[in-house]
């Protein structure tokens, strides 16, 4: 009987240690993932700003006029689609 109790207690102790360890490892993992999310988010924000910068109308107009040799249409050239 005493042996059974001892074995149970020992098992419970090991289980407790194992669970604590698992909990710690998972927290490490969560921490890493959170850092990674934060970095990805920062990258995403940076890219959004870069996109906005590339979409700058001054830049688009410059490329359209200088590189693609486009010009502003006259009112007669504009056809409204239904």
């Amino acid at each position, binding site marked *: 009987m005493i042996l059974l109790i001892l074995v149970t207690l020992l098992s419970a102790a090991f289980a407790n240690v194992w669970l604590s360890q698992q909990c710690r490892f998972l927290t490490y993992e*969560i921490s890493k993932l959170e850092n990674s999310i934060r970095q990805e988010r920062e990258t995403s924000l940076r890219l959004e700003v870069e996109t*906005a910068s590339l979409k700058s109308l001054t830049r688009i107009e410059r490329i359209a006029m200088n590189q693609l040799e486009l010009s502003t249409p006259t009112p007669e050239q504009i056809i409204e689609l239904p």
Partner: protein
Amino acid sequence: MTAAHRKNRQRKGLMLRRNIVVTIMLACFVVILVRAYRLQVTESERLTGLALTEYSRKVTLLPRRGDIVDRRDRILASSVEVYSLYAEPRLIKEPKPIAAKLASLLNLDYLDTLEKLSSGKGFVWIKRKLPPHQKAEVLELNCRALGFLPESKRIYPNRDLAAHMLGFVGLDGNGLEGLELQYDQTLSGEKGHFQVYKDRLGRTVYRHGSPERFEYEGHRLVLTLDKTIQYRLENALRKAVIEQNATSGLAVMMDPWTGDVLAMSVQPSYDPNFFWKYSAARRRNRAVVDCFEPGSTMKVFTALLALENNLIRLDEPVYCENGNFRVGRHVVHDTHRYGWLTLPRIIQVSSNIGALKVGMRMEKAMLYDGLRRFRFGDLTGIDLPGETRGLLRGVTGWAEIDFAAICFGQGLSISPIQQISALSTIANGGLLVHPRVAKRVEDAHGNVIRRFESKPSQRVVSKKSTRLLTKMLKKVVESGGTGSSAALDGYSVAGKTGTAQKVDSKTRTYSKHTYVSSFMGFFPADKPAVVLLVMIDEPQKAVYGGLVAAPVFKTIAEQVIPYMGIKPDEVYLARKDIDSAAARPDEEPLESYASPIGEESEDPGVMPNLIGLDARSALNTLGNRKLDVKLIGSGIVVNQDPPPGACLESKQVSRLILGKE
């Protein structure tokens, strides 16, 4: 000694040693107990606190400043995380090599850097807000005394676009100008905090109460402004300022029904990413914080108030004194010598004398109260910092010449935003609008936190008066009016030119060389979609608003009309259909308000409109009317007396002034 006696002595010795050991052990136990009591009970809190500092840490989350976006969700201002480099000089034994490396990597001054690293302080900034590649290069130095702290950097991806409205933030992320200042609290957010527990390697093993992003981050501000309209308006204005070699220029476009500011620009502009490179004067939003004498554009409001108070009829002639009129010790001039003019003609040709004669039919208090109703001399309440009230003195301070001058736009100062708000009132049929720049505030998840609704409009003048005035303003933009360069193909425009002399700060009199040329108007005149004000300060090539500002108005209008999908006037469309079908030549007049130019009045007792006709055509038009016609000058009819629509008497003298329009 017997064996029994020896045994007895041994037992006593044993007892003694046992008692000593027990006593020592008891003493030790008591000491341990006391110590344990002190540790566990008396000093428990202090020691728990000490232990916590070893393995727990309070993490502060720096809020990211919220974005500013236009009405179509396009980014105008955003923030990204960057790193600032600091050093701990106390830990540096040989600062010279580190200073040399940092100076070359970060383009810093070597001596300054060396001084910082040799200061022996615990903390010094080396360089704030480094680009990512510089951070990587510094990390490669592998120096224990150098570290990085995350900071937020404000970026304006469209550079100088809408710079005066957006404003900018300082190095520490506080709004210093424009919307960044006005909505600083909303945009900046609050620091977020939570607790983490660390292991001996500094890794997080448990976290407690991490806040959600939207709880601490800055909110996003959605504006009424439209990036494309803003860009087109800025381009046209910039070109005009350069062409005219003007000191500056400004333009504001507004929705007359809601007060939404669609675009606002001051040229030359500045790049808020590098705001410190520009003077404070250049960064000032002159459309809101400065005031100007409006000049002839004020005649619109004088005429409106006279109409509202039934002080003049549209066909009633007003004698314009042939261009010179004495008011007290002063003489008021017109640019042309006008005789009799009706109110529509006064507005069309922008006669100062006509405007003051119409305006002075009112009591001083009536004019003052009327102008105050348009919020001249008061704040419009626009959500931009530093708005000026302008200058409209109380009636008691008005001399006769002040009263007269105010009628045609001198002797008072108003801000461009006051002017365009007042014009919106005419465009929308008499309702006062409250200009606004911010539309709504959203959290980091896009949930609407606050909506800035258009404030309920208050009626300032009757719809009838604004309708009549709109028809007059349409004449200004037609041939023969001062603002004909603002006319648009297919769209009716109502507008008014202004050419205001500036006050010379040295002589404190009106300068004969410096002017503010302006044009304000709205289109389509009968169903206004936008109101637009253009002002050019000190143009050098021409001075009249009709020549300087009206063409800019036209350019902007032509560019935004297709973008906004504003439909042409129905009359124009109908006319286009008729033209294309080669229909009857005697088409209907475009409007019934007044006789179109040169159209013969069928009633022989009424004077027809002869403006714009040559002498022969004018005489033919007069036909059988019994008039004593006197032709003065040569060219086309630029003025006539009696005015169009006036009742004729038998053998009345009629003067037709001919000239070049």
